[in-house]
C-alpha cells in the first residue's frame, strides 16, 4: 500500500496530468476546428441558397447530421457512393441524383462523386433542363475543392462540350490550369488541361489569346522535357501537340484574315498574310525537313503569294446561308423540321425547342422548372444543303421509364423553335470557310445577328460574333393537336 505521502504525491501528479490534458485540449482546439472547417461543405455555410437545392438538401439533414456527430462522414459517404454506383450499373439513374447531393453534403471532398454526379445530370438523364444543375453541382464542387484542378477541368469540359459556352469553358480551364493535383508528387495540372484551355480560347474566337496560350504550352512542354520527363503523353510535356497546334492556329488565322482582306480588295494585306504563312511553313520545315503536310501548306502559300504578287485578286463574297424550313406536326408532341441551308456539307444547324419565356420561367426554382418548363435541342447535321429532324416530345429520351410529360411538360402557352447557324459551333474546316466569328457570313437583316458581347480578336482587331438565327413561335395547341398539320413554312 502507498504511504500517505506517496498518495499525496500521486494526487498532485494526477492533478498536474489533468490540468495538462485540459491545456492540451485547448491547444488542439484550433487544429480540430480546422479539420471540421475543411470537412464542411460550403453549401452548409450558406453559399448555396437556391430554393431548388434547399429542397433537395432538406431531405438529407438527418443523413448529414449523423456522420458529422460520429466522425465517420467519409466512410458513410464512401458506402453511399458504392450504393449509387450499384444503381448506375443496374440502370436505375433516378435515385442517383438525390444520392450524389446527399453524399457531397456529407463529405464535400469526394471529387469523383461531383464529377460523376454532374455527368449523370448533364448527360445520362438526357434531360436538357438538368444540364445547368450539373454545371451548378460542379461549381459547388470547385468551391469545396478549390486547391485541385480536377473539378474545374470537368466544369470546363461540360461548358465546352455540352453548353457550348466557350467563355465559361475558358474561365474554368484557366482556373484549372493554375491549380495543383490530388495526387502525391504532382504539383501542377497535367498538360492536357492547358491544351484544352487553348482549344477553348480558340473556340471562343480570341485567336490572339489562343496563340499566346499555345506558345505558353509549348514553352512549358519544353521546360518539362528538359526536366527529363518523357514527351508525347497527354499528361506529360506533349511538346509535339503544342507545336502542331500553335502552327495550325497561326496558319488558319492568316488564311482567314487573308480571305477577309481579299473581300475588302486589299491585295497588299492579303499578300502580307500569305507571306506570313510561307515564312511559318519555312520555319517549321527547317526543324522538320520534308514534313508532308507542311510542305503542302508551303506550296499553297507560295502559290497565293505568286498570284497576289501578279496583282490577281479573287475576292470571295460573304455567304448567305438562305435558311428555309417547314415545321410540321406529324403526331401529337412530334414536330418534324425540314429545310435547306446553303452551307458546306457536314455543317450543323442548332434546332432548339423551348418555352417562349424559358429563362424567366425556369428562374422560379428547381421544382417549377421540372414540373412546368420544357427544353430540348439538337445540333442537326446538314447533308447536301438539306436538314431534317423530328423534335419528339412523346418519349423518354433515356428509356428510363419516365412519362414524356415528366421530361417535356409543355405547360407554357407559347413555345419557340429556334434555328441557329453559328460558326463557333462548327468543325474547323467549316469555320475556315465562314470565319471563327462569322466574318464570312451575311443574311437578311432580321436573321443576321451581330453580337459584340461575344466578339473576339485577331491580330489585335476586335470582331463581333456574326451568326444567323430564325425564331418561330408556336402555340401549345399547335404541338398537342392530333392530325398532321404544317405549322410554319418559310416564305
Amino acid at each position: 500500500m502507498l504511504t500517505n505521502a506517496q498518495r499525496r504525491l500521486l494526487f498532485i501528479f494526477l492533478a498536474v496530468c489533468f490540468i495538462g490534458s485540459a491545456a492540451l485540449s485547448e491547444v488542439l482546439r484550433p487544429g480540430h476546428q480546422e479539420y471540421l472547417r475543411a470537412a464542411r461543405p460550403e453549401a452548409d455555410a450558406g453559399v448555396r441558397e437556391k430554393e431548388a437545392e434547399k429542397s433537395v438538401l432538406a431531405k438529407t439533414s438527418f443523413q448529414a447530421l449523423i456522420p458529422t456527430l460520429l466522425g465517420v462522414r467519409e466512410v458513410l459517404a464512401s458506402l453511399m457512393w458504392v450504393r449509387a454506383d450499384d444503381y448506375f450499373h443496374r440502370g436505375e439513374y433516378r435515385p442517383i441524383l438525390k444520392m450524389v447531393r446527399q453524399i457531397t453534403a456529407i463529405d464535400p471532398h469526394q471529387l469523383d462523386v461531383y464529377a460523376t454526379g454532374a455527368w449523370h445530370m448533364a448527360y445520362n438523364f438526357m434531360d436538357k433542363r438538368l444540364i445547368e444543375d450539373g454545371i451548378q453541382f460542379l461549381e459547388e464542387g470547385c468551391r469545396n475543392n478549390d486547391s485541385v484542378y480536377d473539378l474545374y477541368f470537368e466544369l470546363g469540359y461540360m461548358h465546352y462540350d455540352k453548353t457550348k459556352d466557350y467563355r465559361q469553358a475558358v474561365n474554368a480551364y484557366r482556373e484549372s490550369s493554375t491549380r495543383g493535383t490530388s495526387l502525391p508528387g504532382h504539383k501542377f495540372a497535367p498538360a492536357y488541361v492547358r491544351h484544352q484551355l487553348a482549344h477553348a480560347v480558340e473556340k471562343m474566337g480570341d485567336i490572339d489569346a489562343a496563340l499566346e496560350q499555345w506558345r505558353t504550352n509549348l514553352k512549358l512542354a519544353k521546360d518539362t522535357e528538359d526536366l527529363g520527363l518523357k514527351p508525347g503523353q497527354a499528361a506529360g510535356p506533349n511538346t509535339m501537340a503544342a507545336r502542331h497546334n500553335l502552327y495550325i492556329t497561326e496558319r488558319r488565322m492568316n488564311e482567314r484574315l487573308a480571305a477577309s482582306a481579299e473581300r475588302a480588295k486589299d491585295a497588299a494585306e492579303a499578300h502580307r498574310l500569305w507571306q506570313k504563312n510561307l515564312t511559318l511553313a519555312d520555319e517549321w520545315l527547317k526543324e522538320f525537313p520534308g514534313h508532308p503536310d507542311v510542305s503542302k501548306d508551303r506550296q499553297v502559300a507560295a502559290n497565293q503569294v505568286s498570284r497576289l504578287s501578279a496583282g490577281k485578286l479573287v475576292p470571295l463574297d460573304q455567304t448567305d446561308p438562305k435558311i428555309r424550313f417547314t415545321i410540321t406536326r406529324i403526331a401529337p408532341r412530334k414536330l418534324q423540321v425540314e429545310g435547306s441551308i446553303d452551307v458546306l456539307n457536314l455543317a450543323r444547324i442548332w434546332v432548339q425547342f423551348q418555352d417562349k419565356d424559358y429563362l424567366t420561367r425556369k428562374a422560379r426554382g428547381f421544382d417549377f422548372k421540372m414540373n412546368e418548363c420544357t427544353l430540348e435541342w439538337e445540333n442537326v447535321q446538314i447533308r447536301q444543303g438539306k436538314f431534317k429532324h423530328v423534335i419528339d416530345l412523346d418519349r423518354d429520351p433515356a428509356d428510363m421509364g419516365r412519362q414524356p410529360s415528366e421530361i417535356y411538360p409543355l405547360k407554357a402557352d407559347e413555345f419557340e423553335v429556334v434555328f441557329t447557324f453559328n460558326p463557333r459551333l462548327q468543325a474547323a474546316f467549316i469555320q475556315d470557310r465562314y470565319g471563327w466569328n462569322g466574318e464570312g457570313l451575311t443574311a437578311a437583316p432580321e436573321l443576321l445577328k451581330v453580337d459584340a458581347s461575344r466578339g473576339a480578336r485577331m491580330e489585335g482587331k476586335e470582331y463581333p460574333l456574326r451568326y444567323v438565327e430564325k425564331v418561330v413561335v408556336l402555340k401549345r395547341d399547335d404541338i398537342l393537336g392530333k392530325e398532321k398539320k404544317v405549322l410554319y413554312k418559310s416564305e
Partner: protein
Amino acid sequence: MNTWVIARNTFGDSLRKRVLLIFLLLAFVMLTLALLLNYFTAREQSTIFKSTQLTIILIFGALISITTAVYLIPTEMERRTIYSVLAKPVQRWEFFLGKFLGGAMTVAFMVGLMSVALILVLFVLAAKPQTSAIETTAAAFKMNEWLARCQHEFLLVLRAIIVLYFQLFIITAIATTLSLFLAPTVNFAVTALIWIVGSFQSFLGLSEGILTRPLYYALPHFHDFNIMGSIVHPFAGFQVNHWAYAAGVSLYAVAYALVIVLAGAAVFDRREV
C-alpha cells in the same frame, strides 16, 4: 520492473482469448473485401478503401480494447490469482498499472496487425495508375512512382493509425479503471457510452456553458481524434501541421489516460480484494 512483468504476462494471456482472435479475423475479412471494389477508379477505390478500413480498424480496435480491459482485473479476482500475485513483493499500483499496460499492448498488437494488412492492400492499390481516364491510357507502371505513392500512403496511414491507437489507449484506460467498480457487461456499455459522448462533444456544445464546461474537460475529447478527412482527402487544403497535431493529440491521450489510470491505481490501492 514488476509492472513490466505483469504487463507482459497480461499481454500473453490476452492473446490466448478466442474472442479477440475472432474480432481480428472479422477485421481481416472486411479488409480483404475492399479488393472487390476493383471496378472503381484508383482514386475512388483509394478513398473508399481508406475510409472504410480505418473505420473498421477503429470499431474493431475499440471492441478489442473494451473486451480486453473489462476483464483484466475481474478475471484475476474471480480466479483468485490476484492473491498469489499480491502476496509477492508487488505493489497494488504496480499490479494495476501492469494490467493496464498489458491491455494497451494487446490493443497495440491487434491494431498493428490490422494496419499491416491495410498498408499491404494500399501498396497493391498504389500499383494501379493514380490518374484520370485521359492519362490512364498513356500511363505505364513505373517503379519509382509506385514507391513514391507507397511512401505517401504509408505516412498517411501511419499518422492515422497513431492517432487512432491513442484514442483506443484512452478507451483501454477508462475500461480498466471502471472494471474496479462495474461488472464487465455494464462496464462495456458505460465505456462505449463515454466513447460516443466524447466523440459528440464539439457538436453538443459542452464547452460553451458554465455548468457544462467541467464536464467538457472531464470527458475525453475523442472528437479531437477525428482526422479521417485529412487521410482520405489529403489534397483538401487543411491548414494544419498534421504531424504536430498527431503528436499533440497523442500527448493528450497519454496525459488523460494517466489521470484515469492513476485515479484507478489510487482506488485499487485501498480497496478490499
